[in-house]
């Protein structure tokens, strides 16, 4: 009996010590502060901007690590660390597009009181391209040949060749040289710098206080912030990986803002008095066709078959029924960039009769009476794979049924996202194992740049890293895609991309299913919020909480 008593005492001791340990790790606001709680369904990977491509991380930058320029609700850039946006008119961009000169504000400070200067920009570029650092991407810094700093507030960027997408891609987060340079000098890399995961020095209205793995990240006011004073005391990101739990937490008031809300949850949240905000993100859900003589189904080589598929799917009804009318059918891959849709493109209508006629015309007829069209002994049976996301699987089922009506058999395949997007040789998408693939993608919004469809990006055993997973080589498209990335003349670039758009539409290289906007859920106690797509929390200093002030 004594032994059992001791056992229970021991267990009680373990629980108590664990509770104290966790409770002692800190993380409480207390004192009636205004705390904004954002529910994030994915946790940050690294807070060093060079070491992440993750949306859930980069969109926090406006809270603690201001960009050189940010983007407003209309997705127009506005200066943040710089005094004005470089342009040809103000001399910030050279006529040949090879040099961009930026002028920094002279009152910039890091949260520890150190001056933020041109040296920090140079250091950021040096770290991005240094082979000792395993950064997530060297792009766009690998397009820069050198950077000069004539003085503390002037940054002169020299490019290898004219670089059109500079506004959408450059300076997404600056590194504090005074913190990281000593680490680099000591270790030869910043891979293991403590700042990457605990950046207690930043240059935004808030600064990181605590990031507790798997649980939360808390940002408190930055006393050395040089901009408008924020109204909210603390910004608290709570990591809640489960979608249903996110909805319950929002309904129960355990979170103020949620994102990546499933369309099917929208009515539930609206009934609970939560506002749903949708912002066109530049991303569109679409079908990618493998168009290659060796890979993919031979029928997809014929544009008439692809056009028949476009007309055989009732995409309007799909948006109304599956996506509750919250989205529309995108007319093109660049749907959110109206400037590059000139002349505006029109979607293929749902017209099964016309689709069937096109298939007949292409020689695909049901010669053996099995309900599936065929040609030269080859059945029109296509494999169509995507990830296991619920809405995608629903769409697959609808598309399978509708295409069956015009004599196209579809084999549906679903994969975990990490398997689906694995590299050439491992993943079905990169390896050309499917005829039709589906995911959400877009240009480097708000820029129009794309790089997927280049002929020399087709993956192979010799070049497994290629990004042209459609195995498509169209010389005209190739030339235009290459040209537009160096065109700094806006009108010329508009022409190039509009032409690319037209080719995509006419050739049906890609078929849009629905726009994929950012969907935010905001509780009624949050005020003055606005969202942009690239920098969603750009006006975080204006946000307020009404209950906390009552």
């Amino acid at each position, binding site marked *: 009996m004594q032994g059992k008593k001791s056992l229970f005492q021991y267990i009680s001791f373990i*629980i108590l010590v664990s509770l104290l340990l966790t409770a002692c790790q800190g993380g409480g606001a207390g004192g*009636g502060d205004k705390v904004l709680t954002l529910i994030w369904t994915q946790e940050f990977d690294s807070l060093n901007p060079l070491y992440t491509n993750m949306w859930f991380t980069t969109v926090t930058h406006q809270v603690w690590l201001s960009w050189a320029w940010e983007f407003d609700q209309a997705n127009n850039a506005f200066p943040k660390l710089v005094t004005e946006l470089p342009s040809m008119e103000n001399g910030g961009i050279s006529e040949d597009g090879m040099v961009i000169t930026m002028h920094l504000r002279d009152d910039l400070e890091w949260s520890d009181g150190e001056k933020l200067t041109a040296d920090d920009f140079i250091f950021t570029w040096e770290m991005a391209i240094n082979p000792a650092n*395993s950064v997530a991407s060297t792009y766009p810094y690998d397009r820069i040949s050198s950077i000069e700093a004539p003085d503390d507030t002037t940054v002169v960027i020299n490019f290898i060749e004219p670089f059109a997408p500079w506004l959408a891609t450059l300076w997404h987060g600056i590194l504090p040289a005074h913190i990281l340079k000593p680490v680099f000098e000591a270790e030869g890399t910043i891979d293991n710098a403590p700042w990457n995961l605990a950046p207690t020095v930043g240059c935004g209205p808030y600064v990181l206080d605590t990031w507790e793995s798997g*649980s939360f990240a808390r940002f408190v006011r930055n006393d050395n912030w040089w901009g408008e004073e924020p109204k909210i005391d603390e910004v608290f990101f709570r990591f809640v990986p489960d979608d249903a739990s996110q909805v319950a937490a929002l309904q129960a008031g355990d979170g103020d803002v949620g994102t990546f809300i499933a369309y099917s949850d929208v009515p539930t949240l609206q009934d609970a008095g939560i506002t749903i905000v949708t912002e066109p993100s530049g991303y569109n859900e679409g079908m990618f066709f493998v168009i290659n003589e060796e890979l993919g189904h031979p029928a997809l080589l014929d544009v008439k078959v692809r056009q028949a598929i476009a007309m055989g799917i009732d995409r309007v009804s799909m948006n109304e029924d599956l996506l509750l009318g919250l989205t529309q059918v995108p007319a093109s891959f660049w749907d959110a960039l109206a400037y590059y849709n000139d002349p505006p493109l029109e979607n293929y209508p749902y017209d099964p009769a016309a689709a069937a006629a096109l298939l007949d015309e292409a020689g695909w007829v049901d010669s053996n009476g099995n309900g599936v069209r065929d040609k030269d002994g080859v059945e029109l049976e296509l494999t169509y794979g995507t990830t296991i996301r619920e809405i995608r699987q629903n769409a697959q089922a609808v598309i399978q049924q509708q295409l069956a009506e015009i004599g196209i058999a579809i084999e549906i395949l679903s994969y975990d996202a990490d398997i689906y997007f694995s*590299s050439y040789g491992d993943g079905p998408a990169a390896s050309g194992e499917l005829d039709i693939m589906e995911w959400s993608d877009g240009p480097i919004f708000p820029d129009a740049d794309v790089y997927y469809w280049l002929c020399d990006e087709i993956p192979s055993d010799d070049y497994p890293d290629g*990004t042209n997973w459609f195995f498509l080589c169209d010389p005209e498209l190739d030339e235009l895609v290459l040209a537009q990335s160096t065109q700094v003349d806006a009108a010329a670039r508009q022409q190039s991309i509009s032409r690319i758009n037209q080719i995509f539409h006419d050739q049906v290289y890609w078929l849009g299913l629905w726009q994929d906007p950012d969907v935010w859920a905001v509780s009624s106690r949050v005020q003055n919020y606005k969202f942009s797509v690239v920098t969603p929390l750009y006006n975080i200093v204006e946000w307020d909480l009404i209950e906390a002030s009552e």
Partner: protein
Amino acid sequence: MLRFIIKRVLQAIPLLFFISLILFFLMMNMGDPIAAMAGRNVTRSSDRARLTRQLGLDQPIYMQYIYWLIGNDWKKIDIDGDGIGDSYGTREGILRGDFGTSIVNRGRPVTEVIAQRLPNTLILMVASEVVIIVGALGIGVYSALRQYSWVDHAITAVSFVGYSMPIFFIALLSMYLFGVLFKRWGLPYLPTVGMFDPEEGKTVGQVLLHMILPVLSISLISFAAYSRYIRSTMLEVLGQDYIRTAKAKGLPKRQIVFIHALKNASLPIVTVIGLDLPLLLGGAIVTERIFAWPGMGRLFLDHVSRADTPVVMGILMLIAVAVVVFQILTDIVYAWLDPRIRFEK
């Protein structure tokens, strides 16, 4: 006893080696860490080639296993991609206590990643296990003493309802009922997710409050199995001659049940608990995910989905070692409970 322990530990070494080998090879085929880094666009080809080299993923799998096991500080690594080794690696391998660094949280040592989550899992799982054992003991003994009574039937029915429901259903149901609906109805309600309310701060009281629903969910599905097991072993023991003798001697019922019967009925239960205990370290994957509890289960899920081999291997090896250790402890407890069992020949 000491000889027994040393023998078992020595036996465990080759076993752990083979476990690590199998797990590593399985893990290396379970996804692409570089694809997982891509964000919303496909990784650029130049970045993929560079990261593959920098993270050592261009090496054959057996070589990556060797690096994981004994480190790479004896081999020159190509840093700039020119095919020529530039400087010696920095990894020491798990045999020298270096579990490596996370690929997802670049630069964070695996031991640190795990150490941050382990206390959270322990408070949740140990509390759940205590609730399960205490509750199941009470229910099991009560049912055994009142076999085939209506209470026994009712307990059996309720525990099987709990057992047959998937945990995600119980978790979400309890979250909606006690978190969302109770609040809507103006009743005292429980928090839905996380470990504390950010406006209140992370206090012991807040953590306890946030533990209620996850502990309840984990316990509900486990009551049935444990209580039925205890019931059947108690019934078996209660029918033994020595219990009849104890009754004949006029010992109080409480003493017969809790001293004489329960101790002997506990023997097989100790085995079950001994097998369960190391798995507590792995956390409750579904429960932690639903209640956003930052424990080991979620850590495993988050990192396995992003093919973070060093972290996943660290977790799996921790559990493998724990299984071996708890098996040895179970044998020792067995001897304490049943003096007939001895380790010496």
